């Protein structure tokens, strides 16, 4: 089995790997500090929040859906978790339960409205984007909720064996999610639904139930990202994750997920998220303004999809 076919079997677009490798070489040449362990973990740490959101986005988009509420649910879960511990006075495990629970509840609400009430996903999650953000601001009175217990800070700030805890969480979550999407019945049904809904129904897939599960899973990922964010900055922050849903969708698309469903891989999405993380990190190391970073990421996004079109059509234009 060649390397190419391994990645193709894993649904990873080879172009995204080329872009990743090219960027690593380019940045290493341009900045002497780029290629170091400490900087590598820096990039990984900076990628955790958007990376975990992008896992949620990949599941939903693979099934031809969309979730625009990821960033807002992140902010809501951050505030709910911190409020349970610091306002209500519950012990620290409730912060974890609060973050994950708030994310799953908001995600389930999305799923039910899409699957049962049959409102288009774009509208439902656009609505949730406002609802979750507003709720986060209401619960926290617009203020960050600061000062979490040390057990929680371990999740965000500790470095066991020199590697930041959030990086372990990202890697484990990505590995499990990759397995689920690529190798389980749930994953196959997800891709089938994204490929052709009628055919999926005809083969007996319970589409309604599947959609509810997918949006709940997406909400769970937003909750997990909210937990890590909260632990990392020691604050339940109602403005956390502002417009992160777009970064998450961008990572998924750069990684080879088809915006119209039917194709997607978590490994690919992780490559997409790393490409974005490396661009941001490298340009900062070269002392370039953040404006250029946004331009660079936009360009890579369009270029990655264009390369893909070239390959599938066999010609350039």
């Amino acid at each position, binding site marked *: 089995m060649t390397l190419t076919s391994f990645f193709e079997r894993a649904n990873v677009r080879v172009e995204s790997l080329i872009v990743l490798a090219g960027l690593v070489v380019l940045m290493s040449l341009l900045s002497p500090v780029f290629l170091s362990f400490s900087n590598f973990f820096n990039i990984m740490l900076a990628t955790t929040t958007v990376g975990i959101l992008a896992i949620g986005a990949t599941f939903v988009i693979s099934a031809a859906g969309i979730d625009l509420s990821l960033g807002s649910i992140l902010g809501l879960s951050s505030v709910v978790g911190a409020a349970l511990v610091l306002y209500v006075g519950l012990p620290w495990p409730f912060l974890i339960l609060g973050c994950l629970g708030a994310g799953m509840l908001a995600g389930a609400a999305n799923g039910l409205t899409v699957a049962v009430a049959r409102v288009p996903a774009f509208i439902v999650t656009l609505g949730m984007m406002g609802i979750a953000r507003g709720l986060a601001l209401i619960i926290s009175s617009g203020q960050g909720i600061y000062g979490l217990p040390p057990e929680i800070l371990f999740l965000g700030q500790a470095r066991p064996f020199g590697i930041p805890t959030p990086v372990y969480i990202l890697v484990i979550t990505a590995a499990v999610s990759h397995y689920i999407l690529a190798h389980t019945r749930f994953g196959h049904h997800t891709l089938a639904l994204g490929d052709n809904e009628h055919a999926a129904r005809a083969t007996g897939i319970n589409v309604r139930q599947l959609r509810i599960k997918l949006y709940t899973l997406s909400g769970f990922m937003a909750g997990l990202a909210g937990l890590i964010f909260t632990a990392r900055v020691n604050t339940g922050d109602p403005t956390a994750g502002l417009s992160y849903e777009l970064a998450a969708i961008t990572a998924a698309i750069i990684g080879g997920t088809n915006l119209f469903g039917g194709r997607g891989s978590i490994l690919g999405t992780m490559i997409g998220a790393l490409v974005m993380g490396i661009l941001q990190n490298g340009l900062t190391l070269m002392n370039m303004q*953040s*404006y250029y970073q946004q331009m660079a990421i936009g360009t890579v996004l369009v270029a990655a999809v264009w390369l893909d079109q070239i390959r599938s059509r066999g010609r350039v234009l």
Partner: protein
Amino acid sequence: MRKILLSTALLGLMSFPALAEETYGVLMKTLANPFWGAMELGVKEGAAAAGVNYTLQAVESDQAAEPQLNTCNTMLETKMDALITAAINSTILLPCLKRANEMGIPVVDLDGNLDHAIAADAGVEIAFSIGSDNVAAGAQGADYLVSILGADATGKVLVIEGLSGNITGKKRADGFAAQLAKTAPGLSIVASLPGDWDRGKAANITNDILTAHPDLVGIFAANDGMALGAVETVFAAGKQDQVTVIGVDGNSDAVKSIKEGRLDASVAQLPYLVGKQAVEMVGKLKAGEAVEKLVMVPTMVLTKAVLDAGTEPMLEFVK
């Protein structure tokens, strides 16, 4: 020939850091705003005067908290002798600043965005905070209003606050209210509402309050953008001779409006001076001199008279 030029340029670039004694890392919120632009200019000229190098970073907006933390971490990968930061909120940068402390890099709080108690709690030692005294700026606004209306005046005043929960806007509004109550008890604040730093929102608030209180005599807005929204509404209502409008910041739009005789006054912060002094103070710190923990840079009231006369020495720092 081109090759030689190129290699000379490269050589120049590479040898530049070696020539300069020290490098300061400067992390701002955003540069998409004249206030931060003026501060950047101050940092630049301060660094040139002190003969130090600096690397400057900012994020895409003053809401992008986590990107600012990530940028801060990345900046620490390169060698630096001081880290000067304008944090987006009082907690977001703490993990990075702690790392800086551990690396022996002194941390400076630019424009007073950090809380020393919270920072100490998180194990961060702030060398010093430098910025404008926002309570005093609000009080200066009240003093100006009283100087126009008189200490025994009676009437209704509107206060437009900043983003709800934002400490800067709150300090300005509180400073204004406290000073007004002290110097002109006859002037009563009929409403104090958050304008969220938004010009349009401030215009709507002004409209609503003018409808409810047609006899309004003064408006204090916690920044110039909101004051400009308010002043346009006052003109649209034809009440410019009755209502005195005051903003805070002294930004270029406000200066223009004051010169045109629209906005009455702006309590100007001097971001250029803040940036310049921040660099100078780091130099003192590095030389082992004692530096105050809280450095307050003065603010000044800009009016049409002050701007037209142009004799006030501090005007030089209004950029």
